[in-house]
């Protein structure tokens, strides 16, 4: 199978000292949905900007649809569709006018263009709203219009940068359905960035976990989860405790691995979660550590993230938010 996207050792630094990408590499097989998963500020959007020829990497190389993003930018542009973060539709124009301009820019004209517009408006259930000014569109409609616009040139690679950020939960579910439908399109490759674990789990057949400008894990969501042996144990502590105090209590126990404390939450892994719970509780109690609640779960992508980055996803998000403040 041919590779639709190949990124090799991408490095990008902003303003001399902020390193957005730090040697990021991954490849995407043709016809698959590939997820770039990571918290805000991990480097996902920078990666998309470089792959879609908007920005340039300081070093490293990448090809999209078989063309080099730096030296064959023009060819890359003709073969991709991009739905940028937020939405970039022209709010002063109608849906149809937005579509028309987007098509004209790619050299479509006349009856071919109008037919393509009708087909896409129909497909994304925008027929009724097509001749209304986009300013009046709901968030979900605007996003659907944007996806329709990105498909007007029949791209072979579609980029969706945070396609459901800022949408209501039910609208997000609709969007997931749309994306799944797109994934069934013959030969269309989709690169999706997201900071929602469920989204990556739901939509991507392959994914790369991005952290601080690097890919820290790559594979199918199921395989990544299967790599984690055993069950995840999450213990909610009654009070925040010293890190060493808590981990010390558990490390002596057999069968408990990857102990990590994050504020008042304790994460650990055990071959048999149900059997490990009483043992863990007893060990904590013997050290005088009060427990508020405990749960056992099959490994989730959150656990995968924790395993490869040493932090929970929520914590990484919070850190990223702090940085941008």
């Amino acid at each position, binding site marked *: 199978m041919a590779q639709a996207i190949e990124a090799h050792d991408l490095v990008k630094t*902003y303003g001399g000292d902020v390193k957005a990408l730090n040697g990021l590499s991954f490849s995407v097989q043709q016809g698959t949905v590939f997820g770039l998963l990571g918290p805000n500020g991990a480097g996902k959007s920078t990666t998309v*900007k470089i792959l*879609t*020829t*908007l*920005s*340039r990497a300081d070093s490293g190389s990448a090809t999209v649809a078989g063309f080099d993003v730096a030296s064959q930018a*023009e060819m890359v*542009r*003709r073969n*991709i569709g*991009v739905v*940028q*973060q*937020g*939405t*970039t539709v*022209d*709010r*002063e*124009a109608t849906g149809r*006018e937005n579509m028309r*301009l*987007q098509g*004209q*820019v*790619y*050299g479509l004209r006349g009856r071919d263009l109008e037919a393509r517009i009708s087909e896409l408006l129909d497909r994304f259930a925008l027929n009724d709203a097509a001749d209304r*000014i986009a300013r009046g569109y709901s968030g979900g409609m605007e996003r659907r219009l944007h996806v329709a616009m990105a498909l007007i040139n029949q791209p072979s690679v579609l980029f969706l940068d945070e396609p459901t950020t800022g949408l209501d939960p039910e609208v997000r579910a609709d969007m997931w359905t749309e994306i799944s439908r797109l994934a069934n399109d013959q030969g269309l490759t989709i690169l999706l960035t997201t900071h929602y674990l469920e989204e990556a789990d739901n939509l991507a057949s392959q994914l790369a976990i991005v952290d601080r400008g690097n890919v820290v894990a790559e594979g199918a969501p199921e395989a990544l989860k299967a790599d984690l042996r055993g069950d995840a144990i999450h213990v909610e502590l009654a009070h925040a405790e010293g890190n060493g105090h808590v981990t010390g209590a558990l490390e002596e126990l057999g069968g408990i691995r990857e102990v990590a404390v994050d504020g008042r939450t304790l994460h650990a892994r055990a071959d048999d979660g149900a059997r490990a719970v009483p043992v863990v509780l007893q060990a904590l109690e013997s050290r005088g550590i009060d427990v508020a609640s405990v749960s056992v779960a099959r490994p989730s992508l959150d656990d995968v993230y924790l395993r490869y980055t040493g932090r929970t996803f929520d914590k990484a998000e919070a850190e990223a938010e702090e940085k941008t403040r």
Partner: protein
Amino acid sequence: MTVTLRHSWYMTVRHLRALGRQPAWIAVTLVQPIIWLLLYGALFKRVVQIPGFQGGSYIEFLTPGVLVMTAFFGAGWGGMPVIDDLNRGVIDRFLISPVHRVALVAGRMVQGSIAVIVQSIIIVVLALITGAHYRNGVGGVVVMIFLAVLLAAATTAWSYGVALYVRKEETLIALMQFLLLPLTFLSGAFMQLNLVPGWIRGIANYNPLNWAVEAGRSAAMKHTDWGFVASRTGFLLALLAAALLFATRAFRSYQRSI
């Protein structure tokens, strides 16, 4: 080339349509030059009595000034919607499409030029009604409007480039406030230059707005000097080329920074 022209036209249509949907914008655009012509005409009416003034009636003297000033102001603010497009990611969307960067700037220039032509015609007709006499007929008037369009196109491109560099509305507003009025008054738009202090006359020689005003006045009104008109047209064309180069460079700098 033809593709770039076609893309420029698509962009022009986008801008014209957006403005066409704002009745308030249309109303102000049409009324503004009338107010300026009548206001300045009344304010400076006595200027013609200053010994040494050779302009004939003041309305005749003022018409090219108001016409060029209107074009210059409209174009100077041309960067504002660019910042809006930047913030909404519309520019990014076009930058990763096959559109040539020049077409993005040209779309704004052509849209601005169309506004300038409409406003100019209003001014020319109103001045005619209030007593201006165009010595060289329609030809002279067309040259005068053409010069205003050249200045507006160049100014739009500069404003576009500055918008790409500063990316903040406040900064662009401050910069334009700083430039627009002083450049208007450091010219022969409202006052004959042989009646102003020497230093203003000195600066006016290098002021593109003054090139358009003086050459436009010469072409349409008295004392026509076609050599002078041709040289100032050349200056403005050079300015336009430089402004386009500046705007395309600004795109490169913008893309490097994101």
